[in-house]
């Protein structure tokens, strides 16, 4: 079977090399290793945990392998140290880390104090908690030390950026409805918060009014102004008078909410997740927004030459084949429910693919109960083809958060998915031997070590592939570590970093099939495990 897949893959890659538009993409092959991976966390709980269920992948042990944190809902969260070997099966070991709190809905890793050790922000039903990394995957509560007011809300989204000159990040937290409202909770969306830096600690959180029950947030430089704005995807189930939001957040200024007067078009969806990627190589991000029954792929309306773009988007989901509105296998009448979304090149052909975690809210009879996760592989004409079942990742568990990362550092991206009421699942990508890749980790010397807000650019043929370095988006979790690019048949790639302040590094010729750290001012250095 694998030989057949490999043969198909080879053929597909050959087709890609010939540049035939719309050619069927090579389907990667995944092996589910849930039974032997050492992971036992279940996202449990009832109504207050119907959303959330995030996963965070980040390296806290210093060995380069992404470790894994999983929200546990009403149960304790779980931390798992990655003990996989390069190219081997995926193996994790549960380890007491200090992160094992209850009522955790999601988590994002970032290096808050720029000490070179990843910290973690835990989103919770109740008080949010920042956990300072002490090294060797041990963490301690740092709310008091860093002046972080964790509040008391139903927190469901996070995005982080470094404002100009700041020592600490600005962290936006998205909050859901007032959980104490029983009979009439609709319209009770509680305020989102912006925790800005105040020296080497956080200022009191600033409410972002109006708030509309955020389930995903992303700081992203949508117009390439050099300053990321805050995209907020909101759940229309609960807001009144709400819509999707875009905030301009500039250092020292009050947040500004884009409106129709600026060209921002009202969009009202059951917003649950955001994934961004420059799919068409024009320098601007496309945004995939998950929802119920109908998902959106937004592409920026092109500005007239010489003018700045306005925040106007067209929906390309239908044209590109990524509406993913109903299950592609099994029961197929009722609509789907989509949560985490992430663009990554899963078959290393140089084109970003789209993973979507699916699952009923609970047992809503109007929506599919058997709702397989999607893997939509991008074709050379920019459209996508469903391959979740053929790739072997089409789980019909009730999924929520997920994270795609190269857990065994073999160049092929693996997948972890958090499920409601059953154990999280893990798949190893056994993929495509002859498709090349490169993985990059940018490093800054002092503040904002991981260069959040910068861009990585990699040339492939006539195009420049770009990835924005972000913390946020998805559904209640994401990854921070190696940034992966597929290269297809290309054996070398010119690469550079555009640092968060806009300064572009030099183009460097890097060999495919390797990991590189690119330290600001010092250039690329090949890295290998051990």
């Amino acid at each position, binding site marked *: 079977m694998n030989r057949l897949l490999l043969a198909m893959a080879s053929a597909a890659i050959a087709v890609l090399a010939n540049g035939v538009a719309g050619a069927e993409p090579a389907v990667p092959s995944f092996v589910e290793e849930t039974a032997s991976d050492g992971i036992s966390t279940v996202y449990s709980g009832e*109504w207050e945990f119907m959303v959330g269920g995030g996963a965070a992948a980040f390296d806290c042990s210093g060995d380069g392998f992404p470790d894994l944190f999983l929200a546990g809902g009403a149960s304790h969260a779980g931390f798992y140290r990655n003990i996989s070997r390069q190219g081997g099966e995926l193996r994790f070991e549960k380890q007491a880390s200090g992160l094992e709190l209850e009522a955790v809905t999601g988590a994002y890793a970032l290096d808050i104090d720029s000490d070179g050790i990843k910290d973690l922000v835990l989103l919770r039903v109740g008080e949010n908690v920042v956990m300072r990394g002490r090294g060797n995957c041990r963490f301690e509560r740092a709310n008091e030390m860093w002046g972080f007011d964790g509040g008391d809300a139903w927190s469901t989204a996070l995005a982080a950026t470094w404002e100009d000159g700041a020592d600490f990040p600005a962290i936006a937290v998205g909050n859901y*409805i007032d959980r104490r409202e029983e*009979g009439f909770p609709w319209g009770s969306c509680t305020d989102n918060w912006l925790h800005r830096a105040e020296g080497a600690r956080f200022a009191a959180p600033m409410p972002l009014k109006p708030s509309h029950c955020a389930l995903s947030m992303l700081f992203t430089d949508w117009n390439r102004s050099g300053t990321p704005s805050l995209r907020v995807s909101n759940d229309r189930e609960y807001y009144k008078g709400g819509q999707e939001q875009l905030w301009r957040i500039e250092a020292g200024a009050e947040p500004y909410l884009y409106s129709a007067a600026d060209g921002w078009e009202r969009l009202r969806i059951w917003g649950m997740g955001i994934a961004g990627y420059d799919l068409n190589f024009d320098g601007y991000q496309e945004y995939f927004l998950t929802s119920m029954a109908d998902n959106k792929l937004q592409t920026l309306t092109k500005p007239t030459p010489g003018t700045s773009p306005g925040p106007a988007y067209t929906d390309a989901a239908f044209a590109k084949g990524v509406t993913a509105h109903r299950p592609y296998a099994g029961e*197929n009448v009722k609509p789907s429910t989509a949560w985490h979304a992430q663009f990554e090149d899963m078959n290393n052909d140089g084109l970003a693919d789209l993973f979507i975690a699916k699952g009923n809210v609970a047992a*809503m009879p*109007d929506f599919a109960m058997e709702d397989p996760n999607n893997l939509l592989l991008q074709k050379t004409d920019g459209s996508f083809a469903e391959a979740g079942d053929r790739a072997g990742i089409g789980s019909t568990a009730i999924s929520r958060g997920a994270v795609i990362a190269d857990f065994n550092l073999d160049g092929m991206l693996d997948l972890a998915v958090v499920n409601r009421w059953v154990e999280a699942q893990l798949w190893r990508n056994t993929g495509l031997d002859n498709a090349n890749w490169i993985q990059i980790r940018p490093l800054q010397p002092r503040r904002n070590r991981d260069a959040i807000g910068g861009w990585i650019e990699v040339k492939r043929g006539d195009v420049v592939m770009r990835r924005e370095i972000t913390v946020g988006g998805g559904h209640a979790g994401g990854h921070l570590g190696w940034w992966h690019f597929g290269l297809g048949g290309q054996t070398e790639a010119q690469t550079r970093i555009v640092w968060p302040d806009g300064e572009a590094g030099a183009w460097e010729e890097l060999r495919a099939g390797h990991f590189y750290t690119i330290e600001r001012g010092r250039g690329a250095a090949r890295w290998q495990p051990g």
Partner: protein
Amino acid sequence: MAGIIVRIAFRAAACRLILAIATVTAALAAPAQSAEPRNLEVLGTWYRLALELVRHTPTYSPPVASRAFAYLGVTAYETVASGRDGFATLAGQLNGLTPPPVREPGRDYDDAMALQASVSLLMESLFANTGPTGQRAIDAIARKLDAVARAGVDPDIADRSTAYGQALGEHMLAWAAQDGGAVVENMGFPFRYELKPGPEHWVPTSTIGQQQVPLLPDWGRNRTFAMPDGATCGLPPPPAYSEEPGSSFFIEAREVYDVSLSLTEDQEAIARFWSDDPMLTPTPPGHWLAIALQVLGEKEATLEMRVDTLARIGIGLADAFIGCWHDKYKYDLVRPLTYIRRVIDPAWQAILITPPFPEYPSGHSTQSGAAAEVLTNLFGADYAFEDRTHDDDGLPARKFDSFWHAAEEAGISRLYGGIHYRAAIELGLDQGKCIAAHTNALVTRARP
């Protein structure tokens, strides 16, 4: 429409007999204790929740919402009428409704407890598909209202009233199960549907995957409530399709296009006020139900007046959607968005989201015409009111001189919004008026 008057006269005669029987029955029963505040809290709170759940239950497109309002209204009415002198049952007047359970003669009942039992049962059933938050809300409201209704009531009376309300509610649910609208799958979008060929016919107007087929194509075949069937108030065909400048069809489409280019602030406000999008508002029938509730509140109406009004507005709205849908799929007309982009301006945008079903007649117009006619019959032709339905969503209230003033504005809002031609609006209002005549002919209680 020719047979309407004859049928109404026959039905009125039949109802006089029923009224007499009901009066005797009610006279035998001892009246429940006076408990107006409890009654009104039970009724009002469930209706408030119904308007929320219509908005937050994905199955609830406007036709489905109107059906729920009809069954809720009839159930509330029958619960109260069964304990009142001078009130007739709607059994025998509404299609398929057989006589509901009656109260035991000589025994005391409490209306609040009976209403709590019957209406909560309907709510749980009609909104069984709502999500976990809706289920949690139904449970919470049921607990709260049970305590409210039970306060100070003799336990025997409370239990008897509850049992009666449950029996009545089950009777209503059994009736509802057979109307053709009880099961709605895939939010009302059929899994298979063949579009009719020809430029005059509806084609999808959005890029939403689910909406590549039209909503509820068989809804017009559902059992109606007060009128004989979906074809009862059938409309003449719309203007013949043509792409020729100067043709009636082109002129109507051109009007939609021209208005959109010179839309005033007030016209846009009108379009948005009556937009009433499913999942984002209580839907168009919910809007008119909200108006009825506002009027009942302003008038500090009695429980009897409230249940009579709620039954009638629900029935009128539900029949309006069945009649309208019958003609929508009979004529299957192309939407302005499609025609204007094809013939006049390929880049044209309507300011409202074009609904995913055929154009003629306008659903909002038909049901607004029906609602206005029903409310006019109850409260008069010159009843001025302020419509605060969308206060929570930040849309300012609008003032109207009469219910028909509001209905006409609702109708023309669809032209301002770019989703309907004038014929669909004007004839839709007429259709609603015709449909409401059947509702208004229902006999519920003796009036001075």
